[in-house]
């Protein structure tokens, strides 16, 4: 069985070669960040192309030893960071990914927050630039509150973002995930890619290993048992394995958001012109209101080197309730008068779908179990749509707990509870906790995003119109436009409730 490609790969233009000299000069002037910048420039020309491995090239699960210190289920940002950090602590780590390569199943906006990587995996940050796994340095960040005809935009931009210390980078998950997994392998972890974990093996209550599905010749399939002292569950948003093991209850349709994403190819220079960014610099636009057609949800637009990604999503329950396919939302966004010019002539090169856990703080399951810990999306550790950072931070806390358990020679739930204790001290947890009422509020007010998106855009529009009237008349005009959308008493009530949950 060989992977079937339906489409020839587009070649990525490499405009950065020309500017390398200029940027190195600039880097030399910037002092502290010079190393990063130099590394970034030096290696831009060496960007790896994603490889498509064949199924038969996989390492066989029968070819690796069946006993390890740690088995990690899933090689997303959570699993690979855990494998990397644990291998660096000298543990014998096996991490297992169901995709033919890590990242081949994953979808993201996505952005990398450099300062947080600096905090969690500082030694990987120079490599991030040196090996140029990101797409563009984001120098334009905007939030668009959209109505049918108008857009109210708030944004920050400027050349400062293009200088170290960098803020955010755009990245493609199917590049960043395999790269991170590669770092774990380089640190000594063993990767078993192309195999699905079917279940956790338990001895009484204690998790002692996993059962992996594998082919036994022809189209026949069998299972192999792999044992470890501790199982790190990082299987992502759908807790199939952890639910079967009794660690996590299945989330409801209200708290799982379905995102669809389309990637459109456009030449690099054209992207820079349309989004008004400098060479090699990129833009991210968060979009609210109109994109989710009256439901609470979000979308975003990112520029990559030679493509633009647009994603939009809302809860599975919301889509089911109004009878909407998420692709309809995506097509509607693409046709919006403010977005269409940005993607015109773009050729669709990929269509993808993925869930984001939306339960927030209230959805966090029990994180430590006898012989197992749960990290990343599986643990509902996502703030809004941002989950890469919480995934990595939870991997770090879990690593400390696992190393401690290994030293004690005790992998009981009691010992592994160090992980949630450490996690609770992180900014990720505090942030999640602060947003806990907001999540509930949005769920009990399923149209609040849309209504107020229309209110603010309409109010902004009215205020922007120049008529021969006094400022008092103008205020009345704005208020009456708002009143057409919602009664003012409701505005006041919602404002009080919203303020209550926010602070």
């Amino acid at each position, binding site marked *: *069985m060989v*992977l*079937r*490609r*339906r*489409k020839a*790969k587009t070649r990525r233009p490499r405009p950065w070669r020309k500017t390398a000299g200029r940027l190195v000069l600039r880097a030399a002037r910037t002092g502290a960040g010079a190393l990063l910048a130099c590394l970034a420039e030096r290696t831009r020309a060496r960007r790896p192309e*994603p490889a*498509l491995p064949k*199924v038969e090239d*996989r390492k066989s699960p029968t070819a690796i030893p069946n006993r390890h210190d740690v088995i990690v289920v899933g090689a997303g940002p959570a699993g690979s960071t855990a494998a990397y950090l644990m291998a660096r602590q000298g543990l014998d780590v096996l991490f297992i990914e*169901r995709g*033919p390569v890590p*990242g*081949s*199943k994953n*979808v993201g906006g996505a952005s990398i927050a450099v300062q947080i990587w600096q905090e969690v995996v500082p030694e990987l940050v120079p490599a991030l630039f040196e090996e140029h796994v990101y797409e563009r340095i984001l120098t334009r960040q905007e939030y668009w509150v959209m109505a049918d005809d108008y857009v109210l935009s708030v944004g920050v931009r400027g050349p400062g973002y293009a200088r170290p210390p960098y803020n955010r980078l755009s990245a*493609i998950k199917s590049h960043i995930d395999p790269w991170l997994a590669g770092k774990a392998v380089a640190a000594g972890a063993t990767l078993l890619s192309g*195999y*699905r974990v079917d279940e956790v093996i338990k001895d009484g209550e204690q998790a002692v290993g996993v059962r992996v*599905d594998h*082919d036994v010749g022809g*189209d026949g*399939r069998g299972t192999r048992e792999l044992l470890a002292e501790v199982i790190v569950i990082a299987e992502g948003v*759908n807790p*199939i394995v952890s639910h079967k093991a009794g660690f996590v209850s*299945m989330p409801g*349709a209200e708290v*799982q958001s*379905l995102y*669809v*994403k389309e*990637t*459109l190819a456009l030449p690099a220079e054209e992207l820079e012109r349309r989004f008004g960014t400098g060479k090699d610099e990129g833009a991210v636009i968060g979009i609210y209101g109109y994109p989710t057609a009256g439901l609470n949800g979000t979308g975003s637009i990112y520029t*990559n080197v030679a*493509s633009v*990604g647009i994603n939009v999503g809302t809860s*599975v*329950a919301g*889509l*089911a309730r109004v*009878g*909407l*396919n*998420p*692709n*309809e939302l995506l*097509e509607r966004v*693409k046709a919006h008068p403010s977005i*269409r010019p940005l993607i*015109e002539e*773009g*050729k*669709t*090169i*990929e*269509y*993808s*779908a*993925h869930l984001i856990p939306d339960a927030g703080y209230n959805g966090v399951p029990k994180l430590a179990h006898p012989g197992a810990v749960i990290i990343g999306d599986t643990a509902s550790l996502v703030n809004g749509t941002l989950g890469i950072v919480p995934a990595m931070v939870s991997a770090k806390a879990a690593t400390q707990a696992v190393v401690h358990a290994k030293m004690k020679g005790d992998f009981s739930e009691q010992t592994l509870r160090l992980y949630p204790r450490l996690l609770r001290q992180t900014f990720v947890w505090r942030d999640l906790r602060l947003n806990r009422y907001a999540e509930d509020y949005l769920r009990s007010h399923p149209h609040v995003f849309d209504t107020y998106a229309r209110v603010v855009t309409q109010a902004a529009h009215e205020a922007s119109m120049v008529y021969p009237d006094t400022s008092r008349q103008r205020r009345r005009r704005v208020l009456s436009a708002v009143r057409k959308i919602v009664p003012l008493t409701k505005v006041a009530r919602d404002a009080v409730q919203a303020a209550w949950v926010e602070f």
Partner: protein
Amino acid sequence: MAEMWPDPAAKTSRDVFNPAPASEVWLKDPAACGAPGCGRPCLVVCPAGVFEWLGGPVDAEEVRSPALAQAGKLIAVRYDRCLECGACLYLCPRENVHFNYPAGGYGVYYVHG
């Protein structure tokens, strides 16, 4: 003008797939789908149009109408274009959809994810 893709199933023609020998998506009790009342969200919400009404394309109104309720197999599952999002795990009010990821190494292959 960027291309428009009103049909989600057609849109998956842009993706790379390596379909597994056996499907991991199926209806636990296909006949149960004949009973009205669920609203048939599986037909509407799946981002890849994997669940296909065998009577041909139906609009949202029709899907909800009990007139279409019959016994027997009503829905085809085109698992070879499944994007593996897992939404079908949550959307059926009768929990009538079985979903698991395809066997290791198979299924969708995102290159720009």
